[in-house]
Structures are given as structure tokens and as C-alpha cells.
């Protein structure tokens, strides 16, 4: 075995480690130590450590919606192209949009809430401008998480009312 062969086999051994290490069920210092040599490769997205519906299947459908709070205190949902809004599921076609909508309610999406909400507000104002009804004034813009808890096995299939959590809001009452 010459030097080239040795290098090739060492590269294979390294690649094998890259495949196995991210999946090892170890934690803490041992995990950090094992992952250290692979850091740049893992950051580049070359370590597979995901698994669909693991360790548990979500017990609820979780979607992120945007809406405005009106002067009378009511909340009006703003439908957004390609995203589910609870009134209708299936608008988010394909895993890209489903993943996007799911991820929107996670901590990592905090940065995206203001932009999403402003886009929605722009759409709402455009729609309002096209109607003949008296103008309405929104008092706040809100990003919410709606959770539709799945029925337990054997329970009736009725669509439940969502559990609502406000993720982000901005007052619109002052210009």
C-alpha cells in the first residue's frame, strides 16, 4: 500500500466517522469531543442527523398565521399566498412551504416575524383599499401560532378550535 492508498483509505475512514458520529446517542463533553474533528463539515451541512417524526410525532398541527387587531378588539386573519391559515389546509403545497410554515413558530424564526407581518399588512391594506366598505383602522399587527391538537386514538375526528399563542405583535395605533 503506497502513500496515495493510505491517504485514500484515511479519507474513507474520516468520511465514515462523519456519517456515524452525528447519529451517535451520546451527549455532553463526549459528543463535543467526537464531533470536534468534523466541525467544518457538519457546519457545511454534511452531517445527517435528522429523522422524520423523531423522537416523537407531533401531537398537534402547528401553523403560524398573521393578522390585524381592529378597533373593536376583534382579530382578523390575513390569508397569505401559499401558506395555510387554519380556515383551509392544503394551500401550503409541498414540503418546502409546509416546512417554512412549521419552522416559522420556532425560536430560530424570530428574525422572520416582522417581515412576514409587514408583508401581510401590506396585502391587507391593498385589499382594504379595493373595497367600498368604510375604512377600518387596525390597532395592532400580530403573528400567532395556532395549534390544532390531534384527537387521541379512538376519539371523534372533529376539527378542534386551535390553541392560540401570540408570538410577536406591534402596535399600529401611533404612526
Amino acid at each position, binding site marked *: 500500500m503506497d502513500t496515495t492508498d493510505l491517504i485514500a483509505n484515511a479519507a474513507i475512514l474520516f468520511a465514515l466517522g462523519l456519517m456515524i458520529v452525528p447519529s451517535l446517542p451520546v451527549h455532553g463533553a463526549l459528543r463535543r469531543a467526537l464531533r470536534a474533528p468534523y466541525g467544518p463539515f457538519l457546519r457545511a451541512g454534511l452531517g445527517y442527523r435528522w429523522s422524520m*417524526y423523531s423522537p416523537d410525532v407531533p401531537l398537534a398541527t402547528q401553523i403560524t398565521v398573521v393578522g390585524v387587531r381592529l378597533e373593536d378588539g376583534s382579530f382578523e386573519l390575513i390569508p397569505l399566498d401559499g401558506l395555510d391559515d387554519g380556515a383551509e389546509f392544503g394551500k*401550503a403545497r409541498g414540503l*418546502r412551504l409546509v416546512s*417554512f410554515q*412549521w419552522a416559522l413558530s420556532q425560536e430560530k424564526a424570530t428574525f422572520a416575524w416582522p417581515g412576514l407581518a409587514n408583508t401581510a399588512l401590506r396585502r391587507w391594506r391593498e385589499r382594504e383599499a379595493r373595497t367600498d366598505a368604510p375604512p377600518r383602522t387596525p390597532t395592532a399587527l400580530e403573528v400567532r401560532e395556532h395549534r390544532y391538537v390531534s384527537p387521541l386514538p379512538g376519539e371523534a375526528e372533529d376539527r378542534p378550535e386551535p390553541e392560540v399563542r401570540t408570538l410577536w405583535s406591534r402596535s399600529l395605533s401611533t404612526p
Partner: protein
Amino acid sequence: MIEAWLSFFWSPTDLTSLAVFRVLAGCLVVADALSYASLRRLLLDPASYVPHDDWSASQHANRSSLLRALFARRGSTMALVAAYGLCGLVLAVGFPPPLVVPLASILAFALSRTLRQRNPLVAHSGDILLGILLVLLAFTPCTETLSLAATRSAAPPQRLAAPALRLMQVQLSVLYTTSVLYKLRGATWRKGTATHYVVRLLGHRKRRLPAALDTPASHRVATYATLAVEFGGGLLVWFPATRYPALLALAGLHLTLQLLMRMHLFQWIMLSALVLFIPGEDMARFLDWLGLL
């Protein structure tokens, strides 16, 4: 031990299945690029649901000012998507100059990663797997057959050592088996109710199960069968006697999920990757029977 290692990684092998995977991977990249192109206005453009300014100020854009500049214009975003699709086309067709396909493979990975960096909320596990397989594909002789390069060459396809092909197989096997180990930490998988909840995820659901199959008993069977197929399949694909039953079971699992759930390209990525386990000689006979070789 060393003998086994050398034989496993370095024995010459028929490369027809690898070539089929290259074609499928190229088609998947093209499909993904088309999907990005159709969703660009919503997910990638400067005025998308994640506006450029917000993204630019976030930690996701901090690493590279080049990326910030690239994604500031609609035209350059579209150019990146088009380049990604072009890489897929190069892979699928297998263009002749020796380094073109490996470069296209690496570039497809890099562009996919770049697009996900612009909007990290659209990523799914299929992206990661396809990316790893594309990088490994670049280190294989995958244009020996079923490529423009092969049709222009007078030499018949050769049996060559392809250690990166073995690594791709190992990655898949590790993925299936460790996925079960993760799942066994979850209560729904242990109790046999996981599939009951999977088919009730409203955002993912494409169609309802027939009532006869949507019972607690059938979900118990389906949940444990999923675990058995993933774990058993991930191991049994290595043995000639059990390879085809294992591949059929895994393919059946992915096709069932594709039928019931909105999964973008995830199931097609998995199904394409399973091709890597089919011995090249068998694949060549099958393609010959179809008149494609």
C-alpha cells in the same frame, strides 16, 4: 480485517446502478430548482416573506457579505436558482469532459446550501441527504454508462472500484437504523400510536386513510411495521439473500408516505437513493430488458 476493508471499498464493481442514481439525482436537482423558481417570490426574493433586510440583519446572513449582496437583487437570486437547475441537467445527461459532472455535483450541493442559507426555514431532511450524496457522487466514476460521455466513448463500460459508492450505501444504512433508535425514545412510537398522529398532521396530510385502516389496531401494526422496516431494511440490504425484500419493503414505506403526505421531493430522494443498493449487473439486465441500454 484489512482484507475485508479493502475488498468492501476497493473491489471493482458494475457501475450501472450508480449511473442510474446520477440520472435520478440530476432530475431531482432540476425538480428542486423548478420548485424554488416557482416559490421564489414567496421565499427567496428581496421582498419575500423573509425580506432581505430582516434576513441580512439576522445571524443567518452574518457569515458572508457576498451572500448578502447576492440576494439583494431578484436577478441574482434567479441566476442562482437557474445555475442550480443547470447543474442538475449536467448530472442527468452526464456531459463528457471528465471533470464537468463532478464539478456540477459539488456545485449543486453548494448552490442548494446557499439557497437554504437565504431562507433557512425551508430546509428539510431530504436536502441534507441529497447534499451528502451529491458530494460523494463527485468522487465516483458515475459517467461510465448512461451518459453522453459514455455514448461518445468507443470503450465498453468498465468495472471500477467506487469507494464513494460504498460510503453512500453506508450513509443510507446508518440513516435508517439510527432513525429507529431515535424514534424509540418517543412515547408514540413505543406505544404504537405514531402513525395515528402522523396521518392527522393537517399541514402534511394529502388524503385521509380509509376508515377500515384508520383504527387503533391498524395504527399499532403500521407503527411497529415502520420501525421494523426501517431498522431491518437498513441492515438487511447488505445481504444478497435479503436485499430485494428489504428494498421492496423500504420502497413500499416511502411510496405509502408519498401517497398520503405532502412531502415535496423527500420520498423521491429516498426512493432514488435505494437504487444504490441494487447490484449493477441486475440493473444492467433490467435496463437491457427495457431496451434502455
